[in-house]
C-alpha cells in the first residue's frame, strides 16, 4: 500500500491547504506528541470494581450528603459506594448515589463558560473564556447596582456549591440572598413551628427524630421510603424491625402506609382537624405525660381550653375518617409514651394558611407525650465544632440601608430570620415594588420547577437586565441565562467540612476524586475570581482545599489526618436528657404549647383549624410526592436514573377511573383550575388514592428541551400550580392548593364527587372558569402549559 494513494488531492486542494497552514493555524492542531509515559496501562473493560483506587468523599446527588468512597481505575470513576467508616450509611448508597458516575460523564454537562448569542431563551450560545464570562458578570453587577441600587441584585441558591458565591452577593450590599426555594417552598413552616415550640429546628435540612428507638410512630403525609435519605430510611426501618407500631395519615397509600398498623386515608387539607381532635382526646382522657407537661411545658391550660371544641366526632366528619380508627390510632401512640415519634415532617408548604399550625400540632403532641429528649422521641443535636472562615469579612457584607426593605418589611413577621421570601423577589421583579430587582444569579436551583407559578417566574426573567447561572447540567434556568458558568461536579471538588450533629455525629470532607472535566471550575474558584473582577476584598485562601484545611485546623484536624482515618471521624453523641438536665432553648425556657411570639404578631398562639378550600365541582386536588430514584427535577436527565424510572404517572382512584372509563396506563392531560394544561401523563389506576385527589411524583415533565432524556417525559406538577396561598407567618407558598380535571382525547372529563364535602369546608371558587368555557365553546384553543410556553416566539419575549 502506498501512502500517496490515500486521498488523491487535487492541486487546488493542496494549494488551499498550504494557504490554510500559512494562516497561522497548525493543521495538525498540534494535538499529539511523542509519548513520554511508560507503556503498559491496561485499558479496556474490567471485571467489576474490585481493586480500584479509592477516595473518600461526600455525595451530592441529593442534599442528604452521605459519606462515600469513589473508586477510580485508569483515571476513570468506575463505581461509588458508601464509606464503610460512615456511622450513618456504611457501604450503602441509594440509586442516585450509585449513579453519580453518570452525572460526571454526562455529555450534556455544561463544559465551558458560554454566553447567549441569540435571543434570551433561544438557547443559542458561544463559548467564551472564564475571564470574559466573569468580566461580563462583574460589569453587569456593577452596572445594575449603580443604576438601581444594591438590592436590585438577587441570588437564588441551593446546595453546597452556592455558598461561596453568596458571599459575593452579600459583599455587593444586597439583602436578597438565601432566598432558597428549599426553605420557602419546603421546610420553612415546619422549621418555624419547631423553633418556636421546642426551641430548635427539629426538622430542617437534617431531621432529629429518634425512629430507631421509637415504640410507636406517627407519619402524616410523609414519603419516607419514596423520599430516600439513606440514614433516615434506615432509622425508620430499624424502628419498625425493632417492633415499633406505625400510624400513617395520608390520602394516598404510600410505601410507609404499606408498612403501617393503621392507615388513615384522610381528606386532604384537614390534617390539623385530626391533630387538634387528638390533642383534645389526649388531654380529656388523661393520656398525656403529666409530669413532663407540668415541669417542661407552658401554656397547657390555654391549650386545653382552646382545643376543647375539637371532638373526634367532629373530626370524623371533617376528615372523612372513622371514629374507631382515629381512637385506635391515638391510643396506639399514647401507649408508647414517651417513646413515641410524632414525626415532624419535612416538606410543609401544603396549604399556606395553617401550615405552621399543623407542625405546631405535631410538636404539641410530642410534648404532651413527653417525647422530647428521650429515646424514641425528638432528640437534641450534639454540636460538632469545626472552624468557619468568612471568605469576605463580615463588615464588608453589611446590608445596604433601604427605605422599604423586601426582607425586613415583608408582610410576614417571621420571614426575615430565614431570608427574603422567594415569591416576594419574583413579585418585586415584576412590579418594581418596593424597589426594582434587575439582576439574578442562580446557583443549583431549577427556578421554573421549584417556585410555584412558573408563569410569573418566566415573566420575571424576561424583565431582568441580566441573569447568569452557575450549573453542572443545563436546566431550565440555564436556557434563559445570559451567561452560563460550568460548575465542577461534586466528585471534582473540595467544598467544605461536613459535620453531622445527629444520633451518630461525625466529621468528614468532600474531596475531589478526579480533576474537573473540560473547563468546569470549583465554586470557590468561581466566587474568588468573580470577587477579583468586582474588586471585592476577600477570599484570602488560595483554593478550596486550603479552605477545608483551615476549617479543620480549628479542631486540630487536616485533610491528610482525616484521610488516614478513612476520611471520617465519629464523635460521641448526646441526644437525650434526664428531666433534671433538660433545658429548652425557647424564650420562655419551656416548651411553648402556646406561642406568645405568634400572639404578639396577631397570629394564633395555639393552632386553630382553618379548612383548606375543597376541590370545586369536577376537580380533584393535585398532590405530589417523591420518587426514590430521582432528586426533585435534578436527576431526570441522568442516563441510568432516567432508564430506571423515565416518567411519572398520575395516580387515579380506581372507582373514579371506572366511572370515567380510564384504563391503567392510558395517557391523559390535566387541566388545572386556571385552564393550564399539563404534558401528557400515563395513569396508574389504583385504590391507593382517595377519589377527591390525584397524585404524581414531582420533578418530571421537564420543559427544558436541553435535558434531552427528560424532556417531555411525564407531567410536571409545578406547571399546574398557579394558585398559591401564602403562609401568614413567613410567606412560604402553598403547593397543594391546586385542582385538576382530566382531558382525554381532547374532551374534558369532570371528576365526579363521590365523597360529599361537609358544609364546614368551603369549596374553592373558580376564578376564570366561565371565561375559559366560553372561549372553548367558541372553538379557541385552551391555554396549554406545555412546550408551547417555550416556543420560539415566546422565547423571544412575545408573550
Amino acid at each position, binding site marked *: 500500500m502506498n501512502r500517496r494513494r490515500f486521498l488523491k488531492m487535487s492541486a487546488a486542494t493542496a494549494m488551499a491547504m498550504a494557504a490554510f497552514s500559512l494562516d497561522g493555524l497548525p493543521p495538525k492542531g498540534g494535538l499529539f506528541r511523542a509519548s513520554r509515559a511508560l507503556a503498559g496501562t491496561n485499558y479496556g*473493560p*474490567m*471485571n*467489576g*470494581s*474490585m481493586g480500584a483506587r479509592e477516595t473518600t468523599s461526600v455525595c451530592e446527588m441529593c442534599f442528604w450528603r452521605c459519606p462515600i468512597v469513589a473508586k477510580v481505575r485508569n483515571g476513570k470513576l*468506575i*463505581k*461509588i*459506594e*458508601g464509606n464503610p467508616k460512615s456511622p450513618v*450509611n456504611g*457501604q*450503602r*448508597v*441509594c*440509586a*442516585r*448515589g*450509585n*449513579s453519580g*458516575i453518570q452525572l460526571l460523564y454526562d455529555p450534556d454537562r455544561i463544559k465551558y463558560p458560554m454566553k447567549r448569542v441569540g435571543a434570551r431563551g433561544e438557547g443559542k450560545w458561544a463559548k467564551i473564556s472564564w475571564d470574559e464570562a466573569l468580566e461580563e458578570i462583574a460589569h453587569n453587577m456593577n452596572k445594575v447596582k449603580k443604576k438601581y441600587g444594591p438590592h436590585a441584585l438577587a441570588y437564588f441558591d441551593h446546595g453546597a456549591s452556592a455558598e461561596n458565591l453568596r458571599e459575593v452577593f452579600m459583599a455587593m450590599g444586597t439583602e436578597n440572598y438565601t432566598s432558597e426555594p428549599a426553605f420557602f417552598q419546603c421546610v420553612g413552616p415546619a422549621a418555624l413551628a419547631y423553633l418556636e415550640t421546642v426551641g430548635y429546628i427539629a426538622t430542617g435540612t437534617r431531621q432529629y427524630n429518634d425512629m430507631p428507638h421509637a415504640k410507636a410512630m406517627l407519619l402524616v403525609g410523609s414519603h*419516607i*421510603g*419514596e423520599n*430516600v435519605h*439513606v440514614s433516615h*430510611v*434506615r432509622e425508620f*426501618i430499624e424502628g*419498625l*424491625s425493632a417492633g415499633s407500631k406505625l400510624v400513617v395519615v395520608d390520602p394516598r*397509600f*404510600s*410505601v410507609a*402506609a*404499606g*408498612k403501617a398498623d393503621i*392507615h388513615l386515608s384522610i381528606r386532604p387539607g384537614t390534617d390539623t382537624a385530626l391533630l387538634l381532635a387528638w390533642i383534645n382526646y389526649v388531654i380529656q382522657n388523661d393520656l398525656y405525660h403529666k409530669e413532663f407537661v407540668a415541669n417542661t411545658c407552658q401554656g397547657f391550660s390555654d391549650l386545653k381550653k382552646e382545643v376543647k371544641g375539637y371532638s373526634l366526632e367532629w373530626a370524623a366528619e371533617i376528615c372523612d375518617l372513622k371514629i374507631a380508627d382515629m381512637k385506635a390510632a391515638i391510643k396506639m401512640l399514647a401507649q408508647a409514651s414517651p417513646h413515641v415519634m410524632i414525626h415532624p415532617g419535612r416538606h410543609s408548604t401544603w396549604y399556606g394558611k395553617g401550615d405552621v399550625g399543623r407542625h405546631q400540632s405535631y410538636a404539641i403532641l410530642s410534648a404532651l407525650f413527653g417525647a422530647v429528649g428521650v429515646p424514641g422521641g425528638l432528640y437534641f443535636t450534639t454540636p460538632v465544632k469545626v472552624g468557619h472562615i468568612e471568605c469576605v469579612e463580615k463588615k464588608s457584607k453589611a446590608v445596604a440601608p433601604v427605605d422599604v426593605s423586601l426582607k425586613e418589611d415583608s408582610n410576614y413577621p417571621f420571614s426575615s430570620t430565614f431570608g427574603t421570601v422567594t415569591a416576594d423577589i419574583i413579585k418585586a421583579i415584576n412590579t418594581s415594588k418596593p424597589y426594582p430587582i434587575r439582576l439574578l444569579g442562580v446557583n443549583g436551583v431549577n427556578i421554573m420547577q421549584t417556585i410555584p407559578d412558573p408563569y410569573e417566574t418566566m415573566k420575571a426573567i424576561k424583565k431582568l437586565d441580566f441573569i447568569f447561572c452557575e450549573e453542572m447540567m443545563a436546566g431550565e434556568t440555564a436556557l434563559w441565562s445570559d451567561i452560563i458558568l460550568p460548575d465542577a461536579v461534586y466528585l471534582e471538588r473540595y467544598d467544605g467540612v461536613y459535620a453531622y450533629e445527629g444520633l451518630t455525629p461525625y466529621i468528614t470532607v468532600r474531596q475531589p476524586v478526579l480533576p474537573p472535566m473540560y473547563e468546569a471550575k470549583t465554586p470557590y474558584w468561581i466566587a474568588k475570581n468573580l470577587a477579583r473582577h468586582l474588586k471585592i476584598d476577600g477570599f484570602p485562601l488560595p483554593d478550596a482545599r486550603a479552605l477545608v484545611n483551615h476549617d479543620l485546623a480549628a479542631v486540630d484536624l487536616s485533610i491528610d489526618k482525616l484521610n488516614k482515618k478513612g476520611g471520617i471521624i465519629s464523635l460521641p453523641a448526646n441526644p437525650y436528657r434526664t428531666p433534671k438536665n433538660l433545658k429548652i432553648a425557647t424564650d420562655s425556657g419551656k416548651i411553648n404549647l402556646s406561642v406568645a411570639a405568634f400572639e404578639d404578631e396577631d397570629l394564633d398562639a395555639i393552632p386553630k383549624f382553618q379548612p383548606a378550600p375543597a376541590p370545586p365541582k369536577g376537580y380533584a386536588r393535585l398532590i405530589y410526592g417523591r420518587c*426514590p*430514584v430521582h432528586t426533585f427535577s435534578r436527576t431526570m436527565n441522568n*442516563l*441510568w*436514573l432516567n*432508564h*430506571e*424510572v423515565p416518567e411519572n404517572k398520575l395516580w387515579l382512584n380506581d372507582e373514579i377511573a371506572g366511572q370515567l372509563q380510564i384504563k391503567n396506563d392510558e395517557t391523559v392531560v390535566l387541566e388545572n383550575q386556571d385552564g393550564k394544561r399539563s404534558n401528557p401523563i400515563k395513569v396508574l389506576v*389504583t*385504590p*391507593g*388514592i382517595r377519589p377527591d385527589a390525584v397524585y404524581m411524583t414531582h420533578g418530571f415533565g421537564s420543559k427544558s428541551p436541553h435535558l434531552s432524556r427528560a424532556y417531555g417525559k411525564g407531567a410536571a406538577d409545578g406547571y399546574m400550580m398557579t394558585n398559591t396561598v401564602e403562609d401568614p407567618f413567613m410567606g412560604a407558598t402553598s403547593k397543594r392548593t391546586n385542582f385538576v380535571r382530566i382531558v382525554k382525547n381532547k374532551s374534558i372529563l369532570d371528576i365526579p364527587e363521590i365523597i360529599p364535602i361537609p358544609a364546614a369546608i368551603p369549596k374553592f371558587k373558580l376564578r376564570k372558569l366561565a371565561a375559559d368555557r366560553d372561549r372553548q365553546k367558541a372553538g379557541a384553543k385552551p391555554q396549554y402549559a406545555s412546550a408551547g410556553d417555550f416556543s420560539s416566539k415566546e422565547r423571544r419575549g412575545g408573550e
Partner: protein
Amino acid sequence: MRQYAMIIDLNRCVGCHACALACRAEWDIPAQDGYRRNWVKNLGPAKTSHGLSFTAYPGLCNHCDKPACVPVCPADQIKKTFTEPKTGKTRTMTVAATWKNPFDGTVQIDKTRCLGCGACADACPYGARYVNTNIANKDLDGDGIADKCTFCKPRVEAGLRPACVQTCIADARIFGWRDEPKIADYIKKGAIRLSSAKVQTGPNVYYYGQPKDLELLTKTSTPQEMP
C-alpha cells in the same frame, strides 16, 4: 452440595432501586432496554385479600436447583474442572457455555465461549438473562454474549458481599448459604419462592413479607408457564 441463596425481606424493602443501580455500576451494564442483571418492579398500591399492598418485586437470577437455561445451551461441550475454594476438592463435569457450579450452586456463563444465540434467555421463566449484542465472540461467529446475575461470584470469592446486598439501604437483602441460620431461619418462618405448578425450577431467591405483600408479589410476578 451447598447452595448460595438470597432472602429479600419486603418488610424492610422500600422499593428504592439502589440494588439495581449498584449492580449496573459494579458490572458496567449499558442502560439499554432489557439489559440488566438486577431489577425492581414497584407493585401496587393494589387490593389483596389481606388489604391494600404497595410493595416491590426486586428480581435477579434465581440460581435454580434445576436451571432451565443450562441444558439448552448449544455451545460445544467441554470438560471443565471445578474447585471448591475452601477444601481444594475438585470435580470435573461436561458443560456447554453455561452451567451450575457443583460446589456453590450458582449458575454461571463462560463469556468467552458464548455464541449469543439467546436460547438460555428464552428458556428462563423469570427473564433473568439478556443477550448483550454490543459485544460478541467474533472467533465463534457469535451474535452477542449472554449475561445475568452471578451472585457476584468474583466479589463473594474475594470475601465481599454481592453489590446489591452491600448497597441495600434498608438491609433487606440477605445473602449466604441456604443452610446458614440467617437464611434458613427466614425459610422456616415462611419466606417464599416464585414457583408455580408448572414452573418448578427450584429458585434460590426467597421473598419474605406481610401476607398481603407476598400475595401481590406472587399474583403479579410468579411465572405460571415455562416459556
